[in-house]
């Protein structure tokens, strides 16, 4: 409805404004490498023949996204030519003229516009109650939550170009959910009265249609590389398992807690003289670079193990969705859990991946109180865990201000939305979230002034990861429980 859309648009413009204000940084710092990464990819796709794309290694930032994205960059590079030819020369490492920056940011904004459009469409799907005041409308809140999503603003890349575009293989996280859902709902055209599967309604035609669509997309994007026999190289670039279990800055997942436990046990072991300090491998898990390392006390984790854990974690919800898909909402829910599960147990997970879970959860949050509660916890801790990505003093006010903005808005609006149902977060959760404030003070202000800053510079990052990991894990469990209990109650209702 028009007012929803217009309100939504009015809020959308402000994040773009801020993004454009962020356009003003004259020179992107060399540490924050996303800029350089994209510049390099533009250069590579533009200047080199296709056969070289996945072999090129002049820059340390090699092409590690699927081919469709490479084609996208190739298309962009043709526009980039008009801004500044120099950026397309592969050798120009760390090249950053103002025209280059302008172009990059403009492309981000353009893709954001696509995102905005997608959100607008989603808004339209939501039911609206008449008579609520404008700010309270779920769709407005949803739109604002999505577009103001602190994470997106900070990361400065439209991670979700649109829900449908599969440009990055981070979407593999939710591919199982997609696959199962599509299979279930699309290929089986009818449900039984209670919503369970009707095997007879299996439609071969639809399965073939679905399969061919998927396969042809893959063929189109991977095709040239398969012909050239480069598939293995592409795959090795896409899934660099040589990189360590954790990213440079620990994503707040299970492995962060695992690492901490390992460290704690090893220190304890040394103190109690159970272990010999010389036999332990050198500890450098938390240095800022990506390296392989071994755990000292607990068993080391291999990529295969993480895959198994991930699959195990998302299996129950996939089964539940298979048996009883709940339409769009059920799909969203399983999508969130898949994303979270992969985040929790995946190999070399980047913190940005948390956004993949938070964004779909926004849709659910405006509809159900329980989901709103989970959303608040997940989004606050998830966003906070992104703080280490912006570490210069200049950006400090911006990240704090934006975080405050988003947090206040989400809390107040969701609270208002569900005001009739009682308190949104209980006191323990509130205390946990408030604990983020002293954590931030310690990490950003107090710790750098102490003497430990030089000896153990990674402690703030460690603290942040571990603290947030607790929150993320808690949200994950809550979400799971909500799915399983819903399934239970339905089966109970069926039994009666």
């Amino acid at each position: 409805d028009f007012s929803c859309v217009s309100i939504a648009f009015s809020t959308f413009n402000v994040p773009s404004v801020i993004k454009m204000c962020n356009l003003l940084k004259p020179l992107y710092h060399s540490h924050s490498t996303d800029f350089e990464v994209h510049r390099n990819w533009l250069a590579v796709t533009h200047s080199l023949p296709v056969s070289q794309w996945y072999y090129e290694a002049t820059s340390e930032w090699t092409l590690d996204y699927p081919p469709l994205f490479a084609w996208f960059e190739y298309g962009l590079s043709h526009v980039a030519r008009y801004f500044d030819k120099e950026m397309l020369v592969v050798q120009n490492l760390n090249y950053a003229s103002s025209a280059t920056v302008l172009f990059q940011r403009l492309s981000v904004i353009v893709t954001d516009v696509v995102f905005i459009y997608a959100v607008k469409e989603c808004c339209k799907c939501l039911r609206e109650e008449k008579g609520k005041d404008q700010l309270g409308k779920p769709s407005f809140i949803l739109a604002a939550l999505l577009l103001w999503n602190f994470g997106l603003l900070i990361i400065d890349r439209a991670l979700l170009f649109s829900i449908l575009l599969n440009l990055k293989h981070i979407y593999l996280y939710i591919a199982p959910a997609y696959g199962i859902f599509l299979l279930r709902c699309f290929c089986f055209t009818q449900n039984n009265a209670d919503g369970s599967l009707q095997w007879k309604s299996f439609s071969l035609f639809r399965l073939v249609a679905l399969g061919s669509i998927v396969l042809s997309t893959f063929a189109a994007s991977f095709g040239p590389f398969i012909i050239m026999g480069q598939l293995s190289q592409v795959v090795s670039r896409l899934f660099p398992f040589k990189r360590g279990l954790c990213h440079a800055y620990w994503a707040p997942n299970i492995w962060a807690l695992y690492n901490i436990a390992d460290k704690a046990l090893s220190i304890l072991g040394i103190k109690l003289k159970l272990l010999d300090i010389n036999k332990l491998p050198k500890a450098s898990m938390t240095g800022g670079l990506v390296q392989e390392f071994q755990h000292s006390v607990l068993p080391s984790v291999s990529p295969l193990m993480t895959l198994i854990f991930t699959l195990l974690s998302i299996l129950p919800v996939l089964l539940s969705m298979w048996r009883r898909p709940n339409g769009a909402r059920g799909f969203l829910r399983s999508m969130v859990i898949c994303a979270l599960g992969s985040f929790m147990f995946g190999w070399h997970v980047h913190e940005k991946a948390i956004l993949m879970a938070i964004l779909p959860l926004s849709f659910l949050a405006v509809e159900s109180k329980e989901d709103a509660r989970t959303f608040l916890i997940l989004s606050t801790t998830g966003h906070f865990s992104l703080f280490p990505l912006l570490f210069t003093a200049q950006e400090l006010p911006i990240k704090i201000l934006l975080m405050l903005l988003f947090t206040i808005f989400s809390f107040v609006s969701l609270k208002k939305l569900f005001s009739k149902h009682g308190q949104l977060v209980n006191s323990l959760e509130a205390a946990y979230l408030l604990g983020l404030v002293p954590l931030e003070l310690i990490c950003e202000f107090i710790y750098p002034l102490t003497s430990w800053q030089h000896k153990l510079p990674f402690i703030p990052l460690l603290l942040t990861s571990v603290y947030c990991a607790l929150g993320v894990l808690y949200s994950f469990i809550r979400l799971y429980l909500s799915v399983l209990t819903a399934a239970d109650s339905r089966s109970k209702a069926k039994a009666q």
Partner: protein
Amino acid sequence: METWSLISICVLLGLTTRWAVSFSSYSGAGKAPMFGDYEAQRHWQEVTYNLPVKEWYFNTTDNDLGYWGLDYPPLTAYHSLLCAHIAKLIDPAWVELHTSRGYESASHKLFMRTTVLFADIVIYIPAVILFCFYLTDGSSKKKVATALCILLYPGLILIDYGHFQYNSVSLGLALWGVVGLGLGWDLLGSLAFTLALNYKQMELYHSLPFFCYLLGKCIKQGLMGKGLLLLVKISLTVLVTFAFCWWPFLSDPQQILQVLHRLFPVDRGLFEDKVANTWSSLNVLIKIKTLLSRDTQLLLSFALTLLFILPSSIKLLIKPTLWQFKLALVSRAKVLLIVNSSLAFFLFSFQVHEKSILKLCSVLMFLFLHLISFVCPFCLSYSMLPLLLKDGLLLPYVVTSVAFLYLGVYLLSALDRNVKSLRLCDVFLCVNRKCALHLVFLQFRVSLVAMAGLSFTSVVLEPPARLPDLFPVLVSVFSFLHFLALLLYFNLVQLTEPPSKKGPKKTN
């Protein structure tokens, strides 16, 4: 949503925009040997920290007035001194005498920007919030929307956080003055305004309304009784504040004279650069600068300024007597007067800088009672376009202006369906109010399109070789015409305001 949360969101938005703009370039970045306003502020920190007070405004071997000499009143100097003390703690090289000239570094920029933000948070933003909540009428949503628009006003943000100045301090103090007077705290109001005056002499633009209002109020209360007491109290407050600020300079009349000389540089001529001023615009047609002698110029500008201020000032002098118990109306009348006198000063005054227009437009903000007044702030930031272009602030300008325009038009038109406050019928002599409204909006859109077009051409096209200043001149003339129209309109509104039929709202 609850008001407190809305307000905090607005403030956070304002702060975020400010800080985002602060990332961009400042005035005179990298442009040796003179650099720009940023270097001027840094230089004042250097001067005030290292030299004794007696030497601050004088041309000595250590203090070269030709290189960004102090030309603001003492309070600015004290503020610079305070900042210099902090700077010294962080990195002494920033304020070393002589050697720190032209010092530029990322950390120094961060420091300077932080000082502006701090001053903003402490002085300007609370004043805005108080003003919106206590001195504007309408639903609380409207108040919040007004606050948001004021906080996001591009002109102030661009100048303070881009170009680099501390306008928020003087504007904030002046606003505290308005709030004080509006709430009946006359002494606090006078104190605040006097401080504002002592921070930047441009606040003289607003001094007449304050003076007239307070005087009128005293007269109203009877010059023989309470009125006299009030007059004495106010005068004492003002005098003591002045004495306090000028304390170090009071010992020697030479000092006072020199400071005044620096504050009001009558030597510099009728105008500098291309300002949206009468003289500048007139200069396009007749070369006034060369035609008249300096003294004649002075007299002429003084006379014309006075002429234009007189009607509204007299009106205010009389008005408080009649309406003094109708608080809302009175403060509105007072604010209207502020607009008129600022405009008049700006348009006709001597040696006006583009930035002075800030004084004007920020006050105009407060007139969001009228939708029509929305044109003005927008136009005013537009008039600073040449200056902003010079500083490399094009992108922030575009972005903030678009956002501001969108927000303002959308929010305010959504919340202010009732446009009774528009005095269009009188102005346009239209019988049908709808017709008048359409006219206004049409004119608004036309102006906008023209401004956008002119902005675009200023950036993209090269001016013809014969007329190198074509675009800045066009910008200033265009803005000038708008300002003149505004002056006439507001004068009209103020002078033709009929007595209100409402009963007394508050007593003083």
